[in-house]
């Protein structure tokens, strides 16, 4: 029978089905961080249970950590206590921890792939909705709640309903200045913030296949922003070239065996998807969001919609009021106060190289505060090795130490109330970057050009 890529991987992980139709699904890799794990460890302890497969877990500290002076103790008491709790739990239960100061520390969705822990054909979960990032490798990866974190700790399995399948194909070549981030912001704007709820999305088509692994991670990362359970892309030569030789990737005969299996991971020609969309890559232009959910995106040169569906006017106008925008207006020329380049969506070396290539020899606008937060220690060190840090410094961009930072403002990196921030992160929700902050989501290239110009511009007129 013709089978989708998603079902091939899911089927290979079903331990058994139960009468109601739910399935016991085996989890290969469980990633944890300081925010969503402490209550799960407590749950396990309260029941006197051991961790079933601690060797298949990996921990890092990312959400809460400061991005300055990581060599010193964390100053903020609650953040310090949560990070300390993670260290204590990992020691007690024998879980590998790449904590603050470790050479492999970083955002959980950045370090998994760069260490070769994220592999095609695997199931990966984490108490974080952006776990869908790992789907870029042809893995079934999705975010879970803390109760489920405890379930995986206790059994290495979850009891799940199989999602529906959706395929989103983007065909053709992306135009100059249009990146993976624009592609996914465009798709989310078309489907809406709940448009893929209940589905697992496979991204396909020539424009997707042409993306680097970093670009594919950006696309899969934002699957949750249209409600999808996860997103994935069939592994190919690009995937194998990225994975080969990474610290935890299979080696020698194991590699050959793995590759033979991975080459079977694609959707069969006649495989059925409950929902299919096809988009033309040529229609995609550099994007930006104007509202308070990631579905509220427009081309940089476009206008805020003047009409909204009946019944949605109250939410829509509340959103525009929060952002300080009007129906029907253009965002071009709007002054920007902050630029944030970072997060699990866009903090990889390729993103930093894109920014550096543009800002080299230029200067950020005087009124803009521009911070760049690398996704991991390895990204940070690579940037330094390539001399990118000096380009940033000369252009007035501040390169910080790794963490989730101003994406969700759990640490000190917050955008003040009322200020506008062009961010390469994934969410523009009210208060996401700090109470009252106003976020406009965009690509690293758009963010870099905005920082230099100090306002929203048509970037196609400013490309190097």
């Amino acid at each position, binding site marked *: 029978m013709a089978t989708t890529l998603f079902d091939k991987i899911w089927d290979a992980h079903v331990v058994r089905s139960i009468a109601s139709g739910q399935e016991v699904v085996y989890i290969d890799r469980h990633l944890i961080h300081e925010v969503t794990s402490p209550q799960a460890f407590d749950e396990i302890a309260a*029941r006197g249970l051991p961790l079933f497969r601690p060797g298949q877990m990996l921990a890092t500290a990312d959400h809460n950590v400061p991005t300055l002076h990581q060599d010193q103790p964390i100053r903020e008491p*609650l953040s310090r206590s949560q990070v300390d709790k993670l260290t204590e739990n990992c020691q007690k239960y024998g879980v590998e921890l790449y904590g603050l100061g470790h050479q492999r520390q970083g955002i959980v969705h950045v370090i998994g792939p760069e260490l070769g822990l994220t592999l095609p054909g695997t199931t990966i979960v984490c108490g974080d909705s952006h776990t869908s990032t790992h789907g870029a490798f042809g893995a079934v990866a999705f975010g879970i709640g803390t109760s489920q974190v*405890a379930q995986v700790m206790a059994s290495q399995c979850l009891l799940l309903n199989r999602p529906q399948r959706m395929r989103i194909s983007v065909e053709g070549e992306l135009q100059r200045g249009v990146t993976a981030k624009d592609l996914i912001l465009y798709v989310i704007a078309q489907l809406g913030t709940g448009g893929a709820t209940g589905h697992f999305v496979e991204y396909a088509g020539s424009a997707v296949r042409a993306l680097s692994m970093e670009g594919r991670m950006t696309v899969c990362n934002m699957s949750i922003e249209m409600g999808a359970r996860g997103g994935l892309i069939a592994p190919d030569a690009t995937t194998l070239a990225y994975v080969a030789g990474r610290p935890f990737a299979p080696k020698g005969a194991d590699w050959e065996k793995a590759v033979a299996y991975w080459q079977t991971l694609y959707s069969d020609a006649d495989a059925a998807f409950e929902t299919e969309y096809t988009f033309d890559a040529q229609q995609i232009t550099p994007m930006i969001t104007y509202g308070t959910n990631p579905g509220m995106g427009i081309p940089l040169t476009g206008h805020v919609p003047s009409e909204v569906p009946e019944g949605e006017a*109250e939410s829509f106008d509340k959103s525009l009021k929060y952002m300080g925008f009007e129906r029907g207006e253009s965002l071009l020329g709007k002054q920007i106060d902050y630029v944030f380049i970072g997060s699990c969506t866009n903090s990889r070396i390729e993103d930093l190289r894109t920014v550096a290539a543009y800002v080299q020899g230029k200067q950020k606008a005087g009124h803009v505060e521009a911070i760049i937060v690398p996704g991991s220690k390895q990204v940070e060190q690579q940037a330094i090795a390539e001399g990118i840090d000096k380009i940033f410094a000369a252009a007035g961009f501040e390169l910080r130490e790794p963490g989730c930072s101003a994406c969700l403002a759990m640490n000190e990196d917050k955008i003040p109330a009322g200020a506008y921030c062009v961010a390469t992160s994934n969410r523009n929700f009210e208060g996401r970057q700090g109470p009252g902050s106003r976020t406009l989501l965009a690509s690293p290239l758009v963010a870099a050009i905005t920082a230099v110009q100090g306002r929203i511009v048509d970037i196609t007129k400013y490309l190097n």
Partner: protein
Amino acid sequence: MEKFQTLHTTGVPLPLENIDTDQIIPARFLKATTREGFGTNLFCDWRYRADGTPKADFVLNSPRYAGQVLVAGKNFGCGSSREHAAWALYDAGFRAVVSSYFADIFRGNALNTGLLPLQVSDAELARLLAGIEADPQLALVVDLPAQTLQVPAWGAAFGFAIDAYKKECLINGYDDIDFLVNQKPAIEAYEQQRAWAW
């Protein structure tokens, strides 16, 4: 998990779409390491000004409305996977959320917290929101065994779907950990027979 009891209550209307979990419980409150106490900060930035005083126009501060059922616009609970959102609603006294659809992760988190995500049609949701706004005392009955949301004053009973296993879990206060730990022999057998493992 507490057993889910039949609710005889009233509703609190929040007619906004796409309410994300960052609004339900902002990230800065996720530094706690226990499950309790999140209710105080439920909808914090909609509910309180920066100085901590309540905003009179937010529904949770209105003397008109009270009850154990939150009735909210479609796509409730989108965004972050934080289960703290379900804990905050539960801690604030809610036992069910009615919407015309829920984000997947929130739905699962609610069920694992003992909070019922009760999905009705768009038309039923609009009628309920209008009905509660017109009469805040409108009695609601949530009968999980019968899978109905009843409005006795209207002689109406709206049916809702729920997975049979999760329904039993809610009614009996069971969670998935016990079930999964009991699957250990099958899980170990699975690990032995896998065709490929990294």
